[in-house]
C-alpha cells in the first residue's frame, strides 16, 4: 500500500499541481472549506474530501472506497493519537505545513509524532512564517517535497496521525532525520504557548489563516483541550504497553488492544496451567526457601545447612517428615514416585507414631541413593529418631511400598538403618 501510495501521491501531486507546491496548496485549501464549514458533523465532509483525494489509502485517488475508508478510520485510531476530526483539523494543517517546511519523510513522521504532542504548538511556527514563506517552503523542496507534502497532507486529511504514519514510516526508513523532526521536538515545548501565539499568529487576513484560526479556536475550546489531553494520555499508555507486550509493533489502536488482550489471556492461562503442575511440592520447598531467605529461622535448618552434600530434596523431605507424612508424600508425588495405597494407608495411620521411619524408605530408583544419605541427617535433625528406628523395623516393609523399587530401597534402607542406629 505504501508503494502504491507513493506512486499515486507522486503522480497525483505532480499531475494536479503541475508547476509546484502552491497550486497544490491552493487545491488543498480549496478542499478544506467543506469540513471547516460543517463542524457539527465533521465526519461526512471528511469522508468526501478523503474520497476525493484518497491519499491516505492510496487505493483509489479519486474514488470513494469503503474499504479504504475503514482502513483510514482504523488508522485514525492510532496509538500516537487518534482524534475526532475536530481536534484533528488543526493537526492536519500542522502536518501539512510541517511536512512542507521540512523534508517530506521527516515531516510526516515529525508531524505525526509532534501532532500527538500538542498540535496547537505547531501553529506559531508555520503561521509566523507568513503565507509566502510557506509557499516558498512548498516550492523549494523538489519533487520529493511535493510528494512529502502530499503525504503529509493526505495523512492529515482523515484525521490526526493516521495514514501519514504509515507512509512516513516507510519513508523514514529511506530518508535521513529531517528538520521537520526538530519541529516535532520543538512543538511540544511550544505547546504551552499555544493559545497566545496562536491568536497572534492568526491575525493575518489570508484565507488559510482564517481557516486555521477557526480551527484553532475550535482547538482552544476547553472541551477539545480536555479531549486532546485525554487522547494523549491514552496514547502514552499505549506506547508503554507496546514495550511490554511482545509482538506489539502495531501502530493501530485496535490491533494493539487485540495484542494486549491476547497477552493477558495467555499469561492468565499460564498461571492456571502452572498451578496444575507439580507445584504441589512447592509447599515442601516453602520452609526451606523461607528459612534460607530469612537466615537463622528454625533449628532444623542448621542441620540441613551443614550437610552440603545432601541435595535440597533430601533436606526438604527430612523436614517434612517432622511435620506431616502427607506432605512428604505430596512431595514425593511431585517427584514422580508412585505410592501403593494399602501401605500408604497404614503408613498414614502410623504416621504420627513413626514419621521418621519413613525416611528410610524414600526414593525411587534414582533417589534410592539419596535415601541412604537421608538417614544420616535424620538422627541429627531429629534426635529422637534413633529411638524410633528400631521399633519401626517390623513396619518398614509397609512403608517401603512408597517407592517404586521397594525391594531395592527396602534392602538398602534396612542396612543403612541399622548402621545409623548403631
Amino acid at each position, binding site marked *: 500500500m505504501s508503494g502504491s501510495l507513493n506512486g499515486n501521491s507522486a503522480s497525483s501531486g505532480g499531475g494536479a499541481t503541475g508547476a509546484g507546491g502552491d497550486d497544490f496548496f491552493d487545491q488543498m485549501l480549496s478542499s478544506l472549506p467543506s469540513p471547516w464549514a460543517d463542524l457539527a458533523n465533521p*465526519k*461526512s465532509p471528511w*469522508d468526501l474530501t478523503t474520497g476525493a483525494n484518497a491519499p491516505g489509502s492510496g487505493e483509489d485517488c479519486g474514488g470513494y472506497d*469503503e474499504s479504504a*475508508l*475503514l*482502513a483510514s*478510520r*482504523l488508522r*485514525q*485510531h492510532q496509538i500516537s493519537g487518534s482524534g475526532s476530526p475536530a481536534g484533528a483539523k488543526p493537526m492536519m494543517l500542522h502536518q501539512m505545513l510541517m511536512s512542507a517546511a521540512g523534508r517530506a519523510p521527516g515531516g510526516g513522521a515529525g508531524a505525526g509524532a509532534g501532532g500527538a504532542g500538542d498540535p496547537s504548538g505547531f501553529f506559531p511556527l508555520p503561521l509566523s512564517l507568513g503565507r509566502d514563506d510557506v509557499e516558498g517552503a512548498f516550492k523549494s523542496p523538489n519533487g520529493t517535497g511535493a510528494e512529502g507534502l502530499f503525504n503529509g497532507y493526505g495523512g492529515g486529511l482523515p484525521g490526526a496521525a493516521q495514514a501519514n504514519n504509515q507512509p512516513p514510516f516507510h519513508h523514514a526508513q529511506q530518508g535521513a532525520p529531517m528538520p521537520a523532526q526538530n519541529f516535532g521536538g520543538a512543538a511540544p515545548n511550544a505547546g504551552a504557548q499555544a493559545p497566545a501565539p496562536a491568536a497572534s499568529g492568526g491575525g493575518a487576513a489570508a484565507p488559510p489563516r482564517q481557516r486555521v484560526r477557526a480551527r484553532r479556536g475550535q482547538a482552544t475550546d476547553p472541551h477539545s483541550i480536555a479531549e486532546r489531553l*485525554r487522547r494523549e*494520555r*491514552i496514547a502514552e*499508555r*499505549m506506547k*508503554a*504497553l507496546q514495550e*511490554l*507486550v511482545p509482538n506489539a509493533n502495531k501502530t493501530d*489502536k*485496535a490491533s494493539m*488492544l*487485540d495484542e*494486549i*488482550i491476547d*497477552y*493477558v489471556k495467555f*499469561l*492468565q492461562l*499460564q*498461571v*492456571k496451567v*502452572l*498451578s*496444575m*503442575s*507439580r*507445584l*504441589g*511440592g*512447592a*509447599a*515442601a*520447598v*516453602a*520452609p526451606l*526457601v*523461607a528459612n534460607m*531467605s530469612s537466615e537463622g529461622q528454625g533449628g532444623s535448618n542448621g542441620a540441613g545447612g551443614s550437610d552440603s552434600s545432601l541435595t*535440597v530434596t533430601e533436606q526438604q523431605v527430612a523436614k*517434612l517428615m517432622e*511435620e*506431616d507424612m*502427607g506432605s512428604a508424600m*505430596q*512431595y514425593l508425588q*511431585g*517427584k514422580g514416585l508412585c505410592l501403593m495405597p494399602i501401605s500408604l494407608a497404614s503408613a*498414614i495411620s502410623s504416621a504420627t507414631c513413626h514419621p521418621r521411619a519413613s525416611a528410610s524408605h524414600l526414593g525411587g530408583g534414582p533417589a534410592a541413593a539419596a535415601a541412604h544419605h537421608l538417614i544420616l541427617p535424620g538422627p541429627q535433625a531429629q534426635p529422637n529418631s534413633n529411638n524410633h528406628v528400631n521399633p519401626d523395623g517390623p513396619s518398614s516393609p509397609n512403608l517401603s511400598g512408597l517407592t517404586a523399587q521397594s525391594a531395592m530401597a527396602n534392602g538398602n534402607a534396612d542396612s543403612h538403618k541399622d548402621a545409623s542406629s548403631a
Partner: protein
Amino acid sequence: MQNTIPSKQVLLKTFLTGLRRRNITNKGMTLLERKRAIKLSADLAMASVRKEAKWSNALMADLSRKFQRKTVLPSKHRHVVIKGNKVSTHKRGARRRCAAKATAIAKCIIRKREQVLRRLVPGGKCMDECTLLDETLDYLQLLKAQVDVMRLLVKALE
C-alpha cells in the same frame, strides 16, 4: 506513573507462604482443589506485591468474596458509570446506520475490545479508559513476574 518492576524474591516468598497456609500439603486434595489453592496463592501474592494498584484491590476483594463469603477488604473502586455498557445496542444500531461510515465501525471494534479487556483485568469494570490501560500495564507486569516465579519453582522441583 510507572511502578517499579516487581521483585521476584518478594513474590516468591509471599507465594510460598500462601501455599503453606492453604495447607496444600494435605494429601486429601484433589487435583482441582489443589489447582484452585495454588491459583489463589498466586493471585494473592501478585496482589499483595502491588498494594496500591486498583486491580490489586479489586482482585483481593474478589478473592475474599469468593473464598470467605464476605468482603474482607474495602472496595476502593470508583463507581464510574461506563457508557460502554450500552455498546451492544449502540453497536447494532451503528452497524445498520453506519455502513458507509467507517469511523463508527472502527470505534465499535475498539470499544468491543476494550470491553473484553475490562473483563480480563480485575476491577476493570469501574475504570475509565485511561486508568484501564494503566492498570493493564501494571497487571501485566505482575502476571509476568508471577509466571516466571512459578516456572522457576517447577523447574527447581524437577
